[in-house]
């Protein structure tokens, strides 16, 4: 049985310029203990979809979903009060900016034990002991002393370790890590990533790793979901995805990896993720797609089957080549 089931999740923000759809019909399922990666450029709605799951979006957001189930609990029908019993306990999240994600006015110890106190109770002494144990677990040296430190006295990497300690404090079944290493030094990035993988193994929790770095995905995940402009455009096992990406966007992301570069220059993907005003009428990726044809600009993309990685594309790639346009008939429709 899967731990997390998201079906057709849509998030719209109410903005001064009108409704903005940041997440558009995303579906996702994560098994117990699984490592799932979500990739995509920034602005693809990766964070927003996970924040929606956690119930952390501001009131300007409207969330709809056909199904939002975690650990057998229906999150759609759940009250905010009941949701709070789940988040921070069975489902936890860490964020991109460790330096600003911890409260500057409270000590590390306070912020860790607070999570314990909220969900598990227990005596002061046991909470403190557990906090020390957690800091040990996340590899922070001199844990007893660090309990009394304020976040600004620690480095970014250390703060992210503290964030991880808070998140895993109540032994969650699912940890969502939203670009946990993006804001850190390159040398620290690998350490934090290793720590997360290590903890996942030790604690047996599922991990959703949000990243915009295909390199990270290659090293870590089991399954990947690729997101673009709020839509899920492809989902595959990591190995298959790297061997044979079906969506032109995935393919473009992969060919931007240094180790895959052919020739001296690193190919880059021109353009940016469409925002509120430049949302194309047809396939959202068409304006930037190397394989787009007429239909792509006119008609919204359709989802391919499992054999094509559920690619949201009129002509999913196979071995880098667009599937022959059985779409000839489709083309005909467009011409007429």
């Amino acid at each position, binding site marked *: 049985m899967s731990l997390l089931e998201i079906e057709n999740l849509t998030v719209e923000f109410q903005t001064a310029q009108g409704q903005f759809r940041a997440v558009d019909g995303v579906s996702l399922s994560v098994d117990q203990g699984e490592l799932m990666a979500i990739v995509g450029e920034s602005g693809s709605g990766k964070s927003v979809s996970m924040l929606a799951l*956690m119930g*952390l979006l501001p009131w300007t957001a409207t969330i709809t979903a056909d199904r939002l189930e975690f650990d057998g609990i229906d999150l759609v029908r759940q009250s905010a009060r009941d*949701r*709070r*019993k*789940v*988040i*921070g*306990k069975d489902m*936890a*999240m860490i*964020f991109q*900016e460790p330096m*600003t*994600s*911890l*409260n*500057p*006015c*409270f000590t590390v110890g306070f912020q860790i034990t*607070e*999570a314990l106190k*909220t*969900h598990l109770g227990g005596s002061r002494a046991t909470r403190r002991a557990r906090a020390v144990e957690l800091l040990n677990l996340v590899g922070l040296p001199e844990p007893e002393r660090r309990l009394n430190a*304020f976040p*600004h006295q620690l480095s970014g990497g250390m703060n992210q370790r503290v*964030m991880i300690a*808070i998140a895993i404090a109540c032994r969650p079944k699912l940890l969502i890590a939203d670009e946990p290493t993006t804001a850190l030094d390159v040398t620290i990035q690998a350490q934090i990533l290793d720590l997360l993988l290590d903890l996942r193994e030790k604690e047996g929790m599922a991990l959703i790793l949000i990243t915009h770095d295909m390199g990270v995905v290659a090293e870590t995940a089991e399954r990947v979901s690729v997101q673009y402009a709020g839509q899920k455009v492809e989902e595959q096992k990591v190995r298959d995805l790297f061997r044979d990406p079906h969506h032109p966007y995935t393919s473009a992301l992969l060919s931007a990896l240094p180790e895959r570069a052919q020739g001296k220059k690193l190919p880059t993907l021109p353009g940016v993720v469409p925002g509120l005003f430049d949302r194309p009428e047809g396939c959202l990726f068409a304006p930037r797609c190397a394989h787009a044809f007429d239909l792509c600009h006119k008609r919204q993309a359709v989802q391919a089957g499992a054999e094509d990685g559920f690619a949201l594309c009129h002509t999913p790639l196979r071995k880098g080549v667009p599937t022959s346009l059985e779409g000839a008939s489709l083309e005909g429709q467009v011409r007429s």
Partner: protein
Amino acid sequence: MIKLLFRRVGLMIPTFIGATLLSFLFIRMLPGDPVLLMAGERGMTDERYQRLLHEFGFDRPYWQQYLEYLWGVLQGDLGESFRTKVPVLQEFLTLFPATVELSLCAMLLATVIGIPAGVIAAIRRGRALDHGTMGTALVGYSMPIFWWALMLIIVVSGQWGLTPVSGRISLLYFFEPVTGFMLIDSLLSGQEGAFGSAVQHLILPTIVLGTIPLAVVARQTRSAMLEVLGEDYVRTARAKGLSPFRVVGIHALRNALIPVTTTIGLQIGVLFGGAILTETIFAWPGIGKWMIESVSARDYSVVQGGLLLIAVIVMVVNLMVDLMYGLINPKIRY
């Protein structure tokens, strides 16, 4: 910490000298002759006038008078009142508790109501409650204080008869001051009803004096909260599954209080200004009323001494606020 303390106290010395000079000049710049005023309607002979002038030292040049005043100040001698012949410092110390009592109550009112009001306005941003609270705060801030005081007196004291119009306690009660704080002294006296009477007398002056600080604190709290509520650590707090009360009341408010504390500290200077008017209106026997009367009588030593003492108190309070800032903001450790 010690270094900072020394630097701050060092900075206070020029400010202090400036305050002596200003307080000395201020009263002398006002038209009116203290000796003539003392004589009253009947006037006095020229010879007597000259003798008094000489006795007070007013016949000497200003710079000599100033140096003498400064010399006295350095020795802790602020001179004595022309009118009562009581040393200025002694009069000040007798009256000061009344002003402190009133100011503390006003500040208490401002924080106890202002902070929650600001917090509620912030979490209800853009809704009716927010507009209502902030509209009221704006009115409170812009309202002429004497008008506000008179309206309260007319309605609350006059029409409803709920509170007395002036003074600190009903004339029915009499006891020697112990602390100078009427609320405490009335309790210590053990006289039945004394405390209630003291409270009743405090209500209107507290409201009048507290209105502007209340408005300022509410607005400042709201804007600080709005800023803090958008911070990442507030999201982290919510991600822990904490109750909204804990997220707002502990994680957000603790950070918002940093700028609010500074505001409250700065309001203390404003409060002394407000106290002059409030004390005069309510015949509250404090520093404010004392200063106004002394200015009218051109009681030179009282005015210059009183101004100087007020300046020193404001400086000390500001210093304490700065030091408090270090306690409340963990990022600042001297």
